[in-house]
C-alpha cells in the first residue's frame, strides 16, 4: 500500500513537471497548411518559424539577423553570396548544406495549386551557384538590393526529405521536418498542432519542452479559455477585453506597436472633370468633377480626422496615430513625416479654397470583419468628415465582397489596412506606385494613385545597392506621396498578447505568435 502511494506521488510529481514544461497557446487565426511554401499567410509563417529556419531570420523589430546563413554580402552588382551555418542538422538527422538551399529555391515556384506562390521570391534569381557545401551564390537578373529581405520569407527544406513531398504530406506531419527550434508531433487541421522542443537546435533553446498550439478563432472564447486556465497564452486580444485584462492580477500583457497601418484609399482614377461613383453635390446630383483630384480637398479630409480620439476611445489605446506606413524604430520609418494634426477649422478653410465652401456628399466604404473595429472606425471618420461639411454616408461590408469591389476601383473612398514588411519599398511599390503590371507595381493601389516623381524615385531605388542611399531614395518617395496625400493614414495597430502571470513574451512587430518567444518570467 505504502509503495503504491509512493508510486502515485512520484507519478503525480512527474505529471506536474510535464505540465509545467508544456505551453498551451491559443491563436485567433487558423493555420491552413504546414507546407512552408504553400500559402503566404502570417499565421502560417509564424508556425513555419517554429519548425523551419530561414537564411536570414528576423528579430522582434523585424531587423535582419543571421539564421541559417551567418553572413551575406553582394560580391558583384548582380551576385549575392551567403555563408551558411556549419553543423546544422534537420530534425531527422540529415545535415544542412548548400544543396538544401538550392533545392528550396527551386521548389518555391513549383508548389502545385498554391494560391499565393512563394515563387515571387525566387523570380529575381537567374541562377544559383553552389560554391562549396557552406557557400552559395545567387546571381540575379538585375542588381537586386532586396534579396536578403526576400530571404527572410523563405523557409529552408531538406533536399533528401522533401524532393517529392506534396503539401498533403506536410499536413500529415510525415515530412514536416526542418532545422527549427521545434519538431511537429501532430496536426489536427483547424484545431491544434503539437510540438516538441528540438534539443539539437543550433540557436537559443526554447524554454518549453512541449507546445500545444490551439486555434480558437472566436475572440470571447479565446479570452475565456485564458481566464479559465485552459490555455497559458493568447494572441489578438480583443480591444473590448483590454481594460478588464489589464486590471486582472492573474494576467500579464505583452504589446508592441506593429506594422499594420489602417488608412483610407481615395479615388484618383476619375479625372478632375469626371464624376466619382460615390460623390455628389449636397442635393444628391452629380458634381461633374472629382474633388479628390485636388490635393487641398484630400488634405482637408485628412485634417478633419481626430486620430487621437479614434486610437484612445475606439481602439482602447491599442493603436497609435500615424502619418506613414511604418512606426519609429523600423527601417522604413521616415522621421520627417508626422501624423497629421487634427484641425477642423483649417480643413474647412482648405475646402472653401478648393471651391467647396459648403462641402459635398461622399460615401465611405470599408470592411466590417477584417481589421480591429473596422466598421466602427469608418463610422467615426464619417462623423468627423460630416463636421467639416462633407456629408458622409458609411457602408461596411464583409471582406470577401468589399475587397473585390475595392480592387476594381469601384469606391470613391475606402478604409483598408496594410501589414508591411519593414522596408519602406514594400508599401511604396504596392500601394503608391503607378499601376504598371509589367513591372509588378501598384498591385494593391486600389485608388489608382499615380505620381511620376514617386515612380522615378522608386525606380532608381530598386537597383541601388548602397543601402543608406537606397533608404534615402525610398524615404524621399514615401514623403513625396504622403505630402501629396495619396492615401490618408489613420493609425498603426498595436499587437497585443495576453498570458497567465509568470510568463514573459518577446512581442514581435510582425504579429507572429511563436512558442520560442515565450518563457517563464524571471522571479
Amino acid at each position, binding site marked *: 500500500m505504502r509503495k503504491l502511494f509512493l508510486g502515485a506521488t512520484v507519478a503525480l510529481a512527474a505529471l506536474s513537471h510535464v505540465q509545467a514544461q508544456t505551453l498551451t497557446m*491559443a491563436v485567433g487565426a*487558423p493555420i*491552413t*497548411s504546414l*507546407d512552408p511554401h*504553400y*500559402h*503566404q*499567410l502570417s499565421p502560417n509563417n509564424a508556425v513555419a518559424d517554429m519548425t523551419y529556419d530561414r537564411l536570414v531570420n528576423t528579430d522582434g523589430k523585424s531587423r535582419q539577423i543571421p539564421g541559417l546563413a551567418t553572413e551575406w554580402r553582394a560580391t558583384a552588382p548582380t551576385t549575392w553570396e551567403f555563408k551558411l551555418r556549419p553543423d546544422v542538422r534537420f530534425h531527422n538527422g540529415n545535415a544542412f548544406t548548400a544543396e538544401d538551399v538550392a533545392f528550396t529555391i527551386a521548389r518555391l515556384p513549383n508548389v*502545385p*495549386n*498554391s*494560391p*499565393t*506562390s512563394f*515563387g*515571387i521570391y525566387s523570380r529575381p534569381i537567374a541562377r544559383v551557384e553552389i560554391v562549396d557545401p557552406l557557400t552559395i551564390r545567387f546571381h540575379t537578373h538585375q542588381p537586386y538590393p532586396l534579396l536578403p529581405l526576400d530571404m527572410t*520569407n523563405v523557409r529552408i527544406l531538406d533536399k533528401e526529405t522533401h524532393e517529392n513531398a506534396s*503539401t*498533403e504530406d506536410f*499536413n500529415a506531419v510525415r515530412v514536416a521536418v526542418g532545422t527549427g527550434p521545434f519538431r511537429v508531433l501532430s496536426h*489536427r*487541421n*483547424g*484545431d*491544434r498542432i503539437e510540438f516538441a522542443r528540438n534539443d539539437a537546435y543550433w540557436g537559443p533553446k526554447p524554454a518549453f519542452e512541449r507546445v500545444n498550439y*490551439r*486555434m*480558437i*478563432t*472566436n475572440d*470571447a*472564447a*479565446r479570452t*475565456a*479559455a485564458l*481566464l*479559465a*486556465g*485552459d490555455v497559458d497564452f493568447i494572441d489578438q486580444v480583443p480591444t473590448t477585453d483590454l481594460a478588464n485584462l489589464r486590471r486582472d492580477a492573474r494576467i500579464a500583457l505583452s504589446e508592441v506597436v506593429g506594422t499594420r497601418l489602417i488608412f483610407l484609399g481615395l479615388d484618383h482614377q476619375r479625372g478632375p472633370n469626371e464624376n466619382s461613383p460615390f460623390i455628389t453635390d449636397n442635393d444628391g446630383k452629380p458634381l461633374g468633377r472629382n474633388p479628390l483630384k485636388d490635393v487641398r480637398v484630400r488634405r482637408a479630409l485628412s485634417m478633419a480626422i481626430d486620430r487621437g480620439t479614434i486610437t484612445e476611445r475606439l481602439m482602447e489605446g491599442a493603436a497609435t496615430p500615424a502619418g506613414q506606413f511604418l512606426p519609429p524604430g523600423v527601417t522604413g520609418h521616415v522621421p520627417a513625416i508626422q501624423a497629421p494634426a487634427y484641425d477642423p477649422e483649417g480643413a474647412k478653410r482648405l475646402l472653401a479654397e478648393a471651391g467647396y465652401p459648403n462641402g459635398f456628399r461622399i460615401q465611405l466604404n470599408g470592411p466590417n*470583419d477584417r481589421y480591429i473595429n473596422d466598421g466602427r472606425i469608418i463610422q467615426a471618420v464619417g462623423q468627423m468628415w460630416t463636421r467639416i461639411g462633407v456629408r458622409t454616408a458609411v457602408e461596411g461590408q*464583409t*471582406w*470577401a*465582397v468589399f*475587397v*473585390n*469591389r475595392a*480592387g476594381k476601383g469601384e469606391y470613391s473612398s475606402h478604409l483598408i489596412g*496594410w*501589414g*508591411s*514588411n519593414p522596408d519602406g519599398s*514594400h508599401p511604396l511599390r*504596392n500601394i503608391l506606385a503607378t499601376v504598371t*503590371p509589367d513591372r*509588378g*507595381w501598384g*498591385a*494593391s493601389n486600389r485608388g489608382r494613385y499615380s505620381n511620376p516623381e514617386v515612380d522615378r524615385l522608386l525606380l532608381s531605388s530598386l537597383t541601388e545597392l548602397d543601402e543608406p542611399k537606397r533608404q534615402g531614395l525610398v524615404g524621399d518617395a514615401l514623403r513625396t506621396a504622403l505630402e501629396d496625400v495619396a492615401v490618408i493614414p489613420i493609425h498603426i495597430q498595436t499587437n497585443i498578447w495576453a498570458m497567465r502571470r509568470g510568463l514573459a513574451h518577446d512581442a514581435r512587430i510582425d504579429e507572429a505568435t511563436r512558442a520560442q518567444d515565450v518563457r517563464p518570467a524571471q522571479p
Partner: protein
Amino acid sequence: MSVYLLRRLIQAALVMLAMSVIVFIGVYAIGDPVEILISPDADQAERARAIAALGLDKPLWQQYLSFLTNALQGDLGRSFVFNEPALKLIGQRAPATLELAFAAMFLAILVGLPLGLYAGLRPNGAGAKVIMAGSILGFSLPTFWVGLMLIMVFAVQLGWLPSTGRGETVEIMGLRWSFLTLDGLAHMAMPALNLALFKISLVIRLTRSGVRETMLMDFVKFARAKGLSPNRVIGVHVFKNILIPVVTVTGLELGSTIAFSVVTESVFAWPGMGKLIIDSINVLDRPVIVAYLMSIVLMFIIINLVVDLLYSVLDPRVRLESK
C-alpha cells in the same frame, strides 16, 4: 416500395444538381477568391498565375462542367486554402460534429420527452408551469450568449469544465471520436447542452401538446374503459401517437444541428464542420463550400427518407406508395 425508393433517388439527384448550380453561381457572384487569398507581396503576374492555377481564368460554364465531370467520378475538387481534397477535409471534421449533434439530440429526447409528458398529463400543476416557463427561455435565449455564459460560469468561475476545444480522442476505423473518453465527455458537456437547449424546449412543447390532444381521443377512453392500466395506456397507446410529430421534428432538427451548429462550434472552438464551412465562406473556398452543401443536401434527403419510413412503422395508416 422499390418504385418508391427509386423515385426518391431520382428526386435526390435532381435536387443535388440544382444545389451545385446555385452554390457555384452564388460563390462566383460574391467575388474572386484570389483577391482574398493573395499575399500582399504578390504583384500582377503572380495574381494571374494564381488565378490560372486555381482554374478561375476559364468562363464559369467551363469551370462548372469540369467540376461536374469530376464530381461524377467522386472528386469534388481540392480546397484552395488547404490544398487537400474537399471531401477529405469534411470527412476529417465530420466525427466531431456528428458526436456533438447526436449528444445534443440524445439530451433533447432524454430530458424533453419525460418533462413534456409530465407537463401534458398534469397541465395545471405547478411543475408543469415551471417546465413550460423554462422552455420559453430555452427558445428565446440566443445560443451565442448562452454559450458564453456557460463558459463564464462553469469554466471561468467554477472551473468544473474545460472552456473550449475537443478532448482526448480514440481512433476507431480511422476516425477520431471523443465521446469514449472521460476527458472527451467533459469537453463535450457544455457545447452539447448549449446545442440541446433549444431542442429540449421544442421536444417538451411538442410532447405536451401531443399528450393533451391524444388524451381526449376516443381510443384512450376506450382503452381505459377496457380496464387497461394507466401505464399501458400512456406508455403504449398515447406514446405511439404523439411520437409522429416528435420524430419528424427531431429528424429535421438533427439535420440542421449537424449542418448549422456553426455558432456553438465557434464559441466552443469545436473543430467540426460548422467551423470549416464558415471559414471557407470567409475566404470563398468554393470547392469546400460546394462539397459541404452537397453533402448536407444528401444528408437531409436521407434523414427525410428515414423519417418517412419510420412513419409507416409508427402509424400503419401511412402508406409509402400512396405519396
